[in-house]
């Protein structure tokens, strides 16, 4: 009976080690804190109506940022734990982590950074910006989009669940290669948590990607042909098409792995006719394009930022688009370079080596195109441009090491070494994360109506860049010294230790950079009058997202703009703004279906992790029932009349004029870090001295 009700759960599953204990406390503490704050502020209703059931891609974008930002801090803490262990676990000392625990940490680090940080930030940006850039009021399927987000959130919770119950995550490396991840070598629930957190969020990604492909294809403003689409939208388009193509592969592979583990099948086992090499093959067929799914939107961001901040149209729009299409096409046919060392013949290896090198052609074309765009421009070095200039250097180093790794005989010496790890961190930090930061600092005025604090932003950039050099230049060197990745212990005679310590210092510097970014956002809100963007066009930008208010109203545009050129908004600014005509607007209604389905999906995952059959069955039925109910919903939209739109617009105009006045009266400077600390101290003093806390 107990086994029927609770499956494999027993007393041992409860937290009993220091890290599960700490993790659980943080997990529960954070939850309790949020519950108390929301209850105190009486915001439950607001939370439900405005956020949880929302179908507005802008709000969903913000929620993606919040989840990813939180996960970035968590993944960052894991980085520090990894490097702390590697700095001290030498000779007789085995550090403060056991080998198994250490392996769980780097596995979680990889999953969190790729799936829940990079992927989340990219989806957040696409959600917020793409509909605005193509002049659309909403998405092809707003419901699919909420479902995608909530599945992503369910996956993010699943990846943290093991603290509370089970006490172990996969100790297999981020892709959980077979047969190590099979039941034979990983009998615990760790790999099951891995499977289900990726499975749930991966299905969310597929749904989100389908929706965005449809949105970009069908919802563009009149006159905007594919050849006039802004470059970020192009990058997002290429990326989402790739996601639609390869994410089902991940889903299928994870199901096969699940069958192996749960039903005792033999797809990837060492015995019984299973083929672990097939797992490596399948997972990389998805895994390699995945990296480019993250990269392509960032290429788009950089293209727009370079053009805007050089005050010049992009040098060759066609080459830029072709470059992105080229990267996304070739990226589908290079996956084998992840396992040259598995023993394929020279012909196969050389073929995939050539395919990999070919990607360098469109990528270089993109870089040259950006150079030509800056040439004879008027370049403004605000933070988005700084992130671009930092990206180029890091990305070039990463690109060159990538081409080295694409040469099979060289790969035999570099594969699985820290050189490889340094390479993909150059790409994912230098390329994706810098791209995301570039995008966020570029569009922050769009999100909030406030410009980000420049001064602290610039400090943050330099801390990230310096921290990156400190961490990853030694890592390249370590790889050449023969240091393999994922080592929880090594001998001091190798001489690696000082370099590991330099890396740890670099990690701390990056952590300061990340902290500064959080400070930057808080400081921006403190100085909101001074930083108010009164023009709606703070960067003298070129594309349509700037042709509406900041932040945009929930219907995005009062009048859908007509587009006649690539830089639609730039044209508008120079040829006159069309007059506003108020009209009735169809608005999708909020729906809780996505949230409910994701809750059930989470329970399905949880049930399979712990082998609680009844819960799995009930939850699957729950999903189907919600889907059916949603299907019977005949009125997914309502109409906002022209009159209501006009009232809303007039109210907003009035409010904006008041705010503009406040902004014009405020002639302070962007605050620095020291000002910020002073403000925090005086705030704390105020609370203590005036006993303000009693009010709460």
């Amino acid at each position: 009976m107990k086994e029927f009700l609770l499956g494999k759960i027993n007393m041992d599953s409860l937290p009993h080690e220091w890290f599960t204990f700490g993790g659980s406390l943080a997990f529960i503490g954070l939850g309790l804190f949020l519950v108390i704050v929301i209850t105190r502020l009486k915001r439950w209703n607001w939370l439900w109506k405005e956020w949880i059931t929302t179908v507005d891609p802008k709000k969903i974008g913000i929620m993606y940022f919040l989840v990813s930002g939180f996960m970035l801090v968590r993944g960052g803490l894991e980085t520090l734990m990894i490097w702390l262990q590697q700095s001290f676990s030498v000779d007789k000392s085995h550090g403060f982590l056991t080998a198994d625990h250490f392996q769980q940490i780097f596995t979680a680090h990889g999953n969190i950074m790729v799936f829940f940080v990079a992927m989340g930030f990219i989806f957040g940006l696409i959600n917020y910006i793409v509909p605005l850039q193509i002049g659309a009021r909403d998405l092809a399927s707003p419901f699919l989009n909420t479902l995608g987000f909530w599945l992503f959130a369910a996956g993010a919770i699943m990846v943290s669940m093991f603290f509370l119950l089970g006490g172990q995550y996969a100790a297999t490396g981020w892709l959980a290669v077979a047969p190590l991840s099979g039941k034979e070598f990983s009998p615990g629930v760790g790999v099951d948590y891995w499977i289900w957190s990726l499975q749930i969020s991966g299905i969310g990604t597929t749904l989100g990607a389908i929706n965005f492909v449809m949105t970009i294809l069908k919802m563009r403003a009149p006159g905007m042909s594919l050849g006039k689409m802004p470059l970020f939208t192009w990058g997002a388009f290429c990326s989402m098409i790739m996601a639609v193509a390869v994410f089902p592969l991940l889903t299928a592979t994870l199901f096969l792995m699940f069958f192996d583990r749960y039903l005792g099948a033999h797809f990837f086992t060492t015995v019984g006719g299973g083929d672990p090499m097939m797992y490596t093959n399948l997972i990389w067929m998805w895994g390699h394009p995945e990296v480019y799914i993250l990269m392509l939107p960032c290429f788009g961001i950089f293209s727009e930022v370079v053009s805007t901040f050089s005050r010049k149209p992009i040098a060759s729009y066609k080459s830029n688009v072709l470059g992105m299409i080229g990267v996304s096409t070739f990226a589908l046919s290079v996956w084998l370079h992840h396992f040259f060392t598995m023993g394929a013949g020279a012909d196969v290896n050389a073929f995939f080596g050539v395919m990999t090198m070919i990607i360098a052609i469109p990528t270089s074309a993109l870089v040259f195109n950006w150079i030509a765009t800056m040439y004879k421009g008027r370049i403004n070095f605000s933070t988005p441009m700084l992130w671009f200039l930092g990206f180029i250097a890091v990305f070039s180093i990463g690109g060159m090491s990538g081409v080295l790794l694409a040469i099979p005989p060289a790969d035999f010496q570099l594969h699985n070494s820290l050189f490889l790890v340094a390479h993909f961190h150059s790409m994912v930090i230098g390329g994706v994360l810098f791209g995301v930061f570039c995008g966020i600092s570029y569009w922050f005025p769009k999100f909030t109506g406030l410009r980000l604090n420049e001064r602290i932003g610039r400090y943050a950039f330099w801390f990230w860049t310096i921290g990156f050099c400190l961490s990853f230049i030694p890592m390249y060197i370590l790889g050449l010294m023969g240091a393999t990745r994922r080592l929880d212990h090594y001998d001091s005679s190798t001489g690696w230790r000082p370099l590991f310590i330099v890396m740890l210092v670099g990690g701390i510097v990056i952590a300061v950079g990340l902290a500064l970014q959080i400070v930057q956002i808080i400081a921006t809100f403190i100085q909101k009058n001074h930083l108010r963007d009164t023009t709606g066009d703070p960067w003298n930008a070129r594309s349509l997202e700037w042709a509406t208010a900041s932040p945009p109203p929930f219907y995005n545009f009062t009048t859908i703009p007509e587009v006649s050129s690539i830089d639609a908004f730039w044209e508008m600014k120079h040829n006159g703004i069309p007059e506003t005509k108020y009209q009735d607007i169809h608005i999708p209604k909020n729906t809780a279906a996505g949230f409910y389905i994701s809750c059930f999906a989470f329970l399905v995952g949880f049930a399979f992790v712990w082998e609680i059959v009844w819960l799995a069955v009930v939850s699957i039925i729950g999903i189907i029932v919600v889907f059916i109910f949603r299907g019977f919903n005949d009125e997914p939209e309502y109409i906002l009349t022209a009159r209501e739109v006009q009232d809303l617009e007039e109210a907003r105009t009035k409010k904006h004029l008041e705010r503009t006045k406040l902004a014009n009266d405020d002639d302070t400077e962007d605050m620095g870090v020291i000002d910020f600390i002073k403000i925090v101290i005086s705030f704390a003093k105020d609370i203590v001295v005036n006993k303000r806390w009693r009010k709460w």
Partner: protein
Amino acid sequence: MMYNAYSISNGKGTFMTKRKSRSNQGRFVPIFLLFLVALGLLIRNLIRGKEMSVLNPMGTIASEQLRLMSVSLGIMLILAVPALTILYFIAWKYRETNEKATYSPGQKHGKLFSVSLWLVPLTFVAILANLMWPSTHKLDPRKQISSNQKPITIQVVAMRWKWLFIYPEQHIVTVNYIQVPIDTPIKFELTADETPMSSFWIPNLGGQLYAMTGHVNQLNLMGTTIGDYIGKSAEINGAGFAGMKFTARVSSQTDFNNWVTGTQKSSNNFTIKDYTDLLVPSEYNKAMTYSTDESDIYSKVTDKYTKSHEHGE
């Protein structure tokens, strides 16, 4: 549209004209360059006298691989260094505060520009691919190294978490230790038993290859300098992965012969029971040498998996 709410737009964006402290924006750049120099010097000091195994090849394959890497890197740098220099120079020259620089936003780029955008990297990739294709065949791990010496075969079994080596011709078995004669081609036959994929790697002698259950991968290496080199598993295969190391000793031919005869006489005889004992997972194992009378351990290991295809489980 926006202009309901935003009464004025100065066409430049307010932000760009409002800031005072822009004049010293570039002050971080020289500091950063100094930092890079300091970091370079620091790293140089930290690694002085330390073993840079990939850059310090002691075998034919490793030297060929290093040469290939250096040549390819050189070719890439010919493109990358000027490109980056030009990029940062242009960024600096056309900075907003530089009134003297020309500004031509309407500048049109011709066909030639678009074509060269693609042709330049294409040329470099063609050169690299041209270099890579033949060398991939030449350095195929299963290709035998040509030499006057008769090659020695060593059968390798990856186990949790140690390396078992069988010298079939010499009737010797070792754990976490191999000795090979200098300038003699060595043919490693890699497999694994009850162990996840492992990667057999001796950085000084040459690149790695996977050891997997049910497969035999061939890796040919040859040591050209006498010395002890570290071998390891480069691929994670469980909790004891970091301790799965072995010593590869390249010795003179006479030393090798002495070692072989010495070990053959050893009373430490390797039997099937020793093998089953080794299958029990253990970490940080010491090096061991055995003589052996068993001649089919390796084929038993490989059969164990290939045969299971027929019977199923």
